[in-house]
């Protein structure tokens, strides 16, 4: 295939990925509000559409039509770049998730590394957004958020590397084949737990939503954002939740592998189950304090994941 065609295919699939994430966010926001309402004994949104089902669509229309307010002393370029650098990597990471059969946007031979590396750019966006807003809450939120992000990136990477050790490949498609008999959650349960918990921290969700701790930081790094720019942060959060869940399903739950049903259905089922747990946790647990959060990352998860590395090496020897 000529490079021009490949480029055009990339453009097309990029547009597809953006559309999928937009639709997904609409569904996930509604699901989250409805599930949360159920857990807390409320009914959730009810007014727009039957049972409130069109609420997020209405919200999205409202958001794009809102005035774009920017603080007078904000740095215009960095203020604009911030939300983009947060949203774009989250969407880019979808490129390597195999949805079963030929349904993968690109089977990179370094797919796993790509999935971990690309969302790493997010931290730059968080810092930029917080710094550019010229607001004390934003500034502190951006700093704390980036500190949290980099701290949890390490145990997460070390948990993923154990899967790579067992599978012997960095391609996401090969990972799937390697799990055709036993999903890795059976062989590496500790890796799965570390991955699941640190992933919540990576996408800034409760109990790790320090950057947005409303009672102390208002809305953290996105305090000064409104309208569509603010929506981009939300898009990023839900794209991140989806990508992390889909990747977790792929790494540990055997992705699209399963009897009877087609692969894509299995992947969606497993991903939804993980996302549901994420939502469930959000409405169950309180938030960590900033120092507890850092202590947990460095003094618990990091040593644990290093020990897990040794454990995984032994499992690898035992399986081989």
């Amino acid at each position, binding site marked *: 295939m000529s490079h021009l065609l490949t480029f055009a295919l990339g453009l097309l699939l*990029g547009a597809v990925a953006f559309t999928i994430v937009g639709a997904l966010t609409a569904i996930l926001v509604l699901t989250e509000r409805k599930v949360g309402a159920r857990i807390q004994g409320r009914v959730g949104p009810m007014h727009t559409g039957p049972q409130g089902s069109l609420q997020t669509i209405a919200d999205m229309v409202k958001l794009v039509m809102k005035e774009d307010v920017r603080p007078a002393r904000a740095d215009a370029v960095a203020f604009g770049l911030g939300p983009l650098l947060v949203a774009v990597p989250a969407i880019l990471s979808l490129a390597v998730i195999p949805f079963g059969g030929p349904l993968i946007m690109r089977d990179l031979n370094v797919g796993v590394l790509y999935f971990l590396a690309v969302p790493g750019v997010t931290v730059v966006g968080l810092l930029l957004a917080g710094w550019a807003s010229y607001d004390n809450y934003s500034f502190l939120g951006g700093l704390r958020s980036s500190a949290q992000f980099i701290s949890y990136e390490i145990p997460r990477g070390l948990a993923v590397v154990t899967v790579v050790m067992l599978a012997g490949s960095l391609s996401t498609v090969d990972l799937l084949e390697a799990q055709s008999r036993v999903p890795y959650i059976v062989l590496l349960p500790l890796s799965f737990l570390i991955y699941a918990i640190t992933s919540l921290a990576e996408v800034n969700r409760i109990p790790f939503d320090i950057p947005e701790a409303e009672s102390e930081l208002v809305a953290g790094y996105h305090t000064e954002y409104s309208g569509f720019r603010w929506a981009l942060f939300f898009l990023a959060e839900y794209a991140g939740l989806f990508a992390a869940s889909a990747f977790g399903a792929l790494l540990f739950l055997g992705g699209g592998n399963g009897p009877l049903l087609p692969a894509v259905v299995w992947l969606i089922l497993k991903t939804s189950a993980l996302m549901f747990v994420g939502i469930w946790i959000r409405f169950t647990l309180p938030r960590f304090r900033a120092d507890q959060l850092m202590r947990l990352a460095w003094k618990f998860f990091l040593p644990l994941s290093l020990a897990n590395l040794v454990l995984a090496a032994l499992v690898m020897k035992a399986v081989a």
Partner: protein
Amino acid sequence: MGGMYLSDVVFLLGFALAVVSLPVFTLAAFSLLRPRHPESLKGEAYESGMPQASIPRRPFHMAYYNFALVFIVFEVETLLIFAIAPVLRDAGWWGLGEVASFVVMVTLGLAYAWRKGALVWK
């Protein structure tokens, strides 16, 4: 291998271009529809209704620097392990021992940072 790599990069360039330009386009297109009423108070930074108490361009806590340093050590460690992980299965006990000694050395670094109090968040 080389040609495959190049076409992957070309694909990702197209992919990234689409994902970057769509939000930018949406933001620009809706500027035709959305209201625009600039007012001096709207330009103020939000500080719970008070005038800004301090300038947000100020030095921040030293702890961030410590954590950033330790982060670099362990991120590079993770990356190096990623490089050898796919072939570790066939590397035998000798290869495994080499990687293990590397991990132990970096773990000593963690123990050092821990003892020096670099991992305490104040």
